[in-house]
């Protein structure tokens, strides 16, 4: 279990992280969200013992990270931002080195190597030096070194950055499959990733925690959560839609002709709306229900 209390970090007069407190328990897959420069990476660097907090502390299983650094680092797998690696080494040499430094015994090391090479599909590039790899492969090598020792705590700074959509999906599935009984913290810019992978979302802006809850709760903050959008095939009288019980507001997009109905907080309006359409025989071509627009929520919370 990770416990962060009143954590702050400043560089000179710049405050990167400001009085951050939260707990993370095994089984949690936390998505760290926030604009660039919000303090996500700095927080992760303090969680992994790379940076020392200016004030406050990080405890892992009750031990302070900056006192029992080496001991706690053994339990952590960490992918730093940008997936840095020793470029002149081959993939195989690099993973070998990481396993050695992590103190893995020979049998354990071979098992770990075989597993990560398979999980991240690194067979074809094993003997290539890392500097010749594509961005996607570099990221996968970075992930491989983070999970090679089967750590209880996984901290990944932008794990899917630079991957193509297929690889992104692959890595997300991998994280989900790895996360059983573990404690995972990932940072990302991609909001969908949080709903796809995480069971907890945390938004940080200007070094301060702005939101902490489930991805669903985050979606529910959106005005578009459970909003119903219709497309009419020709102009019809739609003023009545606003009268439906539970509908709070209506918006007509002049360009596309789409009509969006916003529900009052906590209301589900799909039923009444379809009933109304049937009753008045409105010429509806398409109809869909929004799951909430995370971009909107994100902007709302962080700006």
């Amino acid at each position, binding site marked *: 279990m990770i416990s962060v209390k009143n954590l702050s970090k400043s560089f000179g007069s710049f405050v990167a992280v400001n009085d951050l407190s939260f707990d993370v328990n095994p089984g949690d897959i936390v998505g760290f969200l926030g604009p660039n420069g919000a303090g996500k990476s700095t927080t992760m660097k303090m969680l*992994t013992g*790379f940076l020392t907090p200016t004030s406050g502390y990080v405890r892992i299983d009750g031990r302070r990270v900056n006192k029992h650094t080496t001991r706690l*680092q053994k339990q952590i797998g960490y992918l730093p931002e940008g997936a840095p690696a020793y470029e002149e*080494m081959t993939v195989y040499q690099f993973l070998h080195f990481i396993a050695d430094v992590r*103190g893995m015994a020979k049998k354990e090391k071979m098992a770990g190597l075989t597993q990560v090479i398979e999980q991240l599909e690194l067979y074809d590039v094993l003997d290539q030096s890392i500097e010749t790899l594509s961005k996607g492969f570099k990221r996968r090598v970075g992930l491989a*070194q983070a999970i090679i020792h089967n750590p209880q705590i996984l901290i990944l700074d932008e794990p899917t950055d630079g991957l193509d959509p297929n690889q992104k999906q692959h890595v997300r599935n991998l994280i989900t499959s790895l996360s059983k009984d573990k404690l995972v913290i990932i940072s990302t810019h991609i909001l969908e990733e949080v709903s796809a992978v995480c069971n907890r979302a945390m938004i940080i802006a200007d070094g301060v925690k702005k939101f902490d809850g489930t991805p669903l709760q985050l979606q529910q903050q959106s005005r578009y959560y459970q909003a119903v959008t219709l497309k009419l095939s020709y102009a019809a009288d739609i003023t009545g839609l606003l009268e439906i019980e539970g509908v709070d507001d209506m918006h007509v997009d002049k360009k596309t002709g789409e009509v969006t109905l916003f529900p009052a907080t906590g209301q589900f309006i799909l039923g009444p709306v379809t009933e109304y359409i049937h009753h008045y025989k409105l010429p509806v071509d398409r109809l869909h229900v929004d799951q909430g627009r995370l971009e909107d929520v994100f902007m709302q919370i962080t700006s």
Partner: protein
Amino acid sequence: MKTTFFIARREFAAFFATPIAYVFIAIFLILSGIFTFFVGDFYERGQADLLPFFNYHPWLYLFLVPAIAMRSWSEERRSGTIELLMTLPITATQAIAGKFIAAWAVLLLALLLTFPVWVTLNYLGQPDNGIILAAYTGSWLMSGAFLAISMCMSALTKNQVIAFILAILVCFLFVVSGSGIVLNAFEKWAAPGVLDTVASFSFLTHFEAMAAGVLALNDILFFLLVTAVWLYAGLTVIEQKKAV
């Protein structure tokens, strides 16, 4: 201990994965040859010793050791691998020791590869090989002091060129502090005690006897101490300033 070894092995391999070690060794061999045979009048002296060879080592190390050490931490900072390294379960001491051992081993290799000079000498005359071995040991010890200084400078910046220049500057101060250039500046105003202290920091003074094959305890201790102090300074720099 094992961890230090793994780091040293990686660093050592890295020197040879890039051309750095080859270039360094080649230049070291060429320059030491030139100094010995052309500048040092190896033949004309008509003596069966390697004094002309060893006498130029401080000046060779002055430029070559910073070149081999400038990468050690600067590159880690520039590429961000320092974050990877320092979040592995190792201490900064182990990292520094590993890096130092690897680079010192390259220096040893370069020194050993000067064996043709020794072969030549043995072919031409009957030198005292004990003296030569002592001088080699002294030279390697001194290179460690140069290396510790240069690695500390490399820890200061992510720019290798700056690390290189800073290292040369500090090494130069240590080399010349016993020579007239520096001592004259102090002579006018400083107390004799100060003057002696400054002079006693000189690599040249301490290496003088070593080049002649005399391994005095105080000279050995001096170089070991300088190495230890600068390694410790490097450690402090890394621990205080891990992020860029």
